[in-house]
């Protein structure tokens, strides 16, 4: 099976990717470049994670770098900040699905685990993923933080993930932990959704 893995530079995504690679799946990585709302560190961490996992699993794992900062600016200017994280994730999923189409991949994969951060409640995951049709695999969904960290340490990716960096500055003060599709659709109706995704994918860089 060929899959597209969303890589953030954090602790979870390289562990999830490694589990997929261990089962023999062919994987393509996508990193949503959130600069200027972060610094260079998430991208550097993703490239280092991939170097390690390519060597470990003997797979090329191409990396698509997609600009996400301009989308964040548009969301901040136009939509309700309270649901900003869910809207942000919807654009990530849409872009990842477009890359999957281009790459002939049949599944999307993330390192999400239930309840770790505001965007990872069941209601927010549902609101975020309602925009994609491909199945989504979450190899870590039921694991707790300590289990995932132990696996990351064993893999050697943990030390890369915890290097200093700038947390996402686009996260609102009080992000919604529950969201309804009606509420989200109302916000997105203010946006040229297809135009935004087209532009993001057009500006993709493959590394």
């Amino acid at each position, binding site marked *: 099976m060929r899959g597209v893995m969303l890589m953030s530079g954090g602790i979870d995504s390289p562990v999830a990717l490694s589990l997929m690679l261990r089962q023999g799946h062919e994987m393509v990585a996508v990193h949503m470049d959130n600069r*200027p709302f972060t*610094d260079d560190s998430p991208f550097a961490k993703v490239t280092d994670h991939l170097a390690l996992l390519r060597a470990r699993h003997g797979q090329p794992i191409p990396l698509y770098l997609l600009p996400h900062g301009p989308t964040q600016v548009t969301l901040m200017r136009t939509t309700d900040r309270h649901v900003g994280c869910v809207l942000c994730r919807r654009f990530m999923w849409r872009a990842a699905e477009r890359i999957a189409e281009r790459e002939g991949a049949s599944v999307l994969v993330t390192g999400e685990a239930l309840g770790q951060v505001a965007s990872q409640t069941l209601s927010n995951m549902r609101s975020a993923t309602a925009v994609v049709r491909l199945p989504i695999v979450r190899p870590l969904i039921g694991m707790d933080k300590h289990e995932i960290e132990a696996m990351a340490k064993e893999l050697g990716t943990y030390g890369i993930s915890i290097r*200093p*960096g*700038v947390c996402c*500055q686009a996260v609102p003060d009080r992000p919604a932990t529950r969201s309804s599709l009606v509420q989200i659709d109302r916000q997105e109706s203010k946006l040229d959704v297809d135009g935004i995704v087209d532009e993001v994918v057009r500006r993709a860089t493959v590394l």
Partner: protein
Amino acid sequence: MRLCAGGGAFEAIPRPRLELNLAEVKLRLEAAGFSVVDARVMLLLKRGSEATLSRDGRILIKTRDPEEARRILDDLVGRLGLPPPAGP
């Protein structure tokens, strides 16, 4: 001024929180040579190091060098007439 949670930047949080007119602040900083993107609830600034300035006065400076961060912070605070942040 203190290291941010991720350890990759310094942040200064005014007490009490402010209510800045970001449109006006943008004009003043652009006149001073900053590149400024208005994201409605915050400004994204660049002149050398990058920084963000939130509507409530929070400033985040993307450098791990405390002296550079202090220099940029003092410059912004002085330029915008903000109350001096507490701490080292």
